[in-house]
């Protein structure tokens, strides 16, 4: 008899647990009541900007929290804008940005659990369908470097796109390969096997790097292709820009691709790469900006259109670095689709983004990102002015 009771109780408990799980999932699916951080809770102390909490100026509205998530590529720049904005400009606003990667950022954006998202890659047709009325706001522009570890070689190394593709394909296996030697006269290249390093996680950096290799090498395009993660023919993998940089600096005779800021921070030498004009160009703030200048002044898509064809790879500028990529903020054109959004919060959100694409750009060069060219800023102004809340246009600045 006792066992009967016990078993009955256990079954009841299991039913309750399973019921709870399903009830929870059922509540989640309509996306009506997700449980993000309460947006207007004055007792919640900001973690990133201590100055924001007690000394709220009496004229400003109630404290507002904006939540964003996505790419790690622009994160150093975004963090700088957030700190500056919430300390010096709008102490009543708290902004949280989680660098969880472009892919995760886009899915949070689609499920509307964040107020804004960042992605290195523009939304694809399918993603745009899943998130109707999404707007692209180019926020900054950066360079992807080819970094190397060559003990005994102190002079700067030159590479072409095709050589890089062949190294990653495994058709060039040795550092003293004739193809490398031919464009590096005067450099004593070691007779040593090349170890390639790549990103092991899904990455916007990999996406743009492999797109560049597809542009310059038909063999790469045929055999491997491009994407946030590809079937690498060999080499070592490491997760994240920082780990790739560390792997390169620790592995002798290795080569890998990382964003400019990470190469500079880790002090790894980077190769000068031949651009479309035939010049060998080192990645730098200037050569990144030069590439950004070659964006057409007209014919760019509007914020609500597809940005998939906007590419800054292998641009024609004389001194333009060939592997350059824009990175995007994503916002909804009608902000009332986000649960918990209010007119005040929507206004604060748009004003923050307005700041990022205007005054915030001044913070970019110090962090090795290129400032947005004037035509992109103008385009962003148009995009931001088109944003509404319940059909009402917002005060953008």
């Amino acid at each position, binding site marked *: *008899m*006792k066992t009967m*009771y*016990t*078993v009955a*109780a*256990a*079954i009841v*408990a*299991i039913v309750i*647990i*399973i019921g709870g*799980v399903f009830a929870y999932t059922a509540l989640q699916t309509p996306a009506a009541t997700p449980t993000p951080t309460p947006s207007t809770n004055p007792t919640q102390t900001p973690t990133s900007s201590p100055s924001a909490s007690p000394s709220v100026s009496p004229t400003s509205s109630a404290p507002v929290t904006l939540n964003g998530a996505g790419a790690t590529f622009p994160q150093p720049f975004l963090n700088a804008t957030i700190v500056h904005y919430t300390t010096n400009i709008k102490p009543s606003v708290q902004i949280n940005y989680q660098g*969880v*990667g*472009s*892919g*995760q950022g886009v899915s949070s954006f689609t499920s509307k659990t964040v107020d804004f998202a960042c992605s290195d890659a523009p939304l694809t047709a399918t993603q745009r369908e899943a998130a109707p009325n999404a707007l692209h706001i180019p926020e900054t522009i950066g360079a992807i470097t080819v970094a190397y570890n060559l003990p005994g070689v102190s002079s700067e190394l030159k590479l072409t796109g095709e050589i890089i593709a062949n190294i990653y394909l495994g058709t060039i296996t040795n550092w003293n390969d004739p193809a490398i030697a031919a464009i590096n006269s005067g450099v004593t290249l070691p007779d040593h*096997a090349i*170890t390639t390093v790549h990103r*092991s*996680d*899904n*990455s916007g950096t990999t996406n743009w790097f492999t797109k560049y290799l597809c542009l310059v090498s038909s063999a790469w395009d045929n055999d*491997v*292709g*491009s*994407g*946030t*993660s*590809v*079937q*690498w023919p*060999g*080499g*070592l*993998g*490491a*997760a994240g820009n920082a780990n790739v940089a*560390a*792997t390169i600096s*620790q*592995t002798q005779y290795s080569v890998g691709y990382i964003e400019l800021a990470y190469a500079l921070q880790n002090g790894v030498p980077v190769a000068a790469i031949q651009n479309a004009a035939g010049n060998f160009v080192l990645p730098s703030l200037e050569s990144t900006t030069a590439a950004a200048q070659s964006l057409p002044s007209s014919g760019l898509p509007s914020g609500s259109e597809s940005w998939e064809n906007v590419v800054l790879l292998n641009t024609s500028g004389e001194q333009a670095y060939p592997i350059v990529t824009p990175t995007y903020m994503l916002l909804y054109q009608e902000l009332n689709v986000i649960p918990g959004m209010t007119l005040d919060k929507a206004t604060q959100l748009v004003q923050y983004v307005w700041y990022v694409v205007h005054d915030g750009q001044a913070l970019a060069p110090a962090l090795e990102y290129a400032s947005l060219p004037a035509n992109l800023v103008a385009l962003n102004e148009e995009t931001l002015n088109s944003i509404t809340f319940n059909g009402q246009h917002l005060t953008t600045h």
Partner: protein
Amino acid sequence: MTKKLTGDNIFKVLAAVMAASAAVILIINAYILITGSTLILQQEGINFLIGKNWNPVIGRESFGVLPFVMGTLVTSSIALLIGVPLSLGIAIFLVEMAPKAVKVPISYLVELLAAVPSVIFGLWGLFILRFWVQNYVETPLNTYLGWFPLFSGTPLGLDFFTAGIILAIMIIPTVASVSREVLTAVPDSIREGAYSIGATKWEVIRHWVLSYGRSGIFGAVILGLGRAVGETMAVTMVIGNAPNAMPTSLFSPGQTLPSLIANGFLEAPTPLEKSAYIGAGLVLLLISLIINIVAHVMVTRVLKVKGGAVE
């Protein structure tokens, strides 16, 4: 026949609920893994298990987990080959030989090893152990025995071998602690009997003590294997994360199932790719289940100790 709601009964019900929750969690887990991986299983079929290609590029998708299953088995085997003898040595020394003044601190130290977070092992492996292995083990082996397929390739220190060593260190506390408990539980009468017929210390340990405790020790090894198969963080940091690398040499970079999932799952861009990672999780769960079932059969059928005596 009314039932009184005594404290004992309440306690019994509570305990039963806790016990049931373990089963419920496993069932929910399996359910989510199975529903999550139907997409990839429909797409790839049996190829998912035996395919050697893992290509997530859109338009060229192909998902086969065989290289990662092999990687998991290879690294776990290295871990057992290195870790089990070490752990047994520790357990035997602590139980049979060590004076009390040594016994207590060493026991604590071994158990402290279990408290080190795996990311710390990973960092240590990446920044320190890697170079020791590369310079003092792999390079000499490769130079003098490079003709042997297991030692061929370019020794970089980020490969199956280093991952296996890290795993060996990580399973030592588990295997050593459980084995120590097992050996302590061997009745002294067994030892006394053995000594009384003139056995040496080695013979007593080899023929009586280990034999008596072997099912327990086997259980300890399986616990260690379970940890090695599922370990993610430390392995991901030192295994080199090369895709599609069927283990050809100990010194080639590769991936295990957990490292594959850790690397790719979070940002998988397409539903198919996401489903492929969930499928990899299902395969990993199946491997763990098979290991545990085999272990159970081994312990209950093959290694059964009859009446506390040696066969």
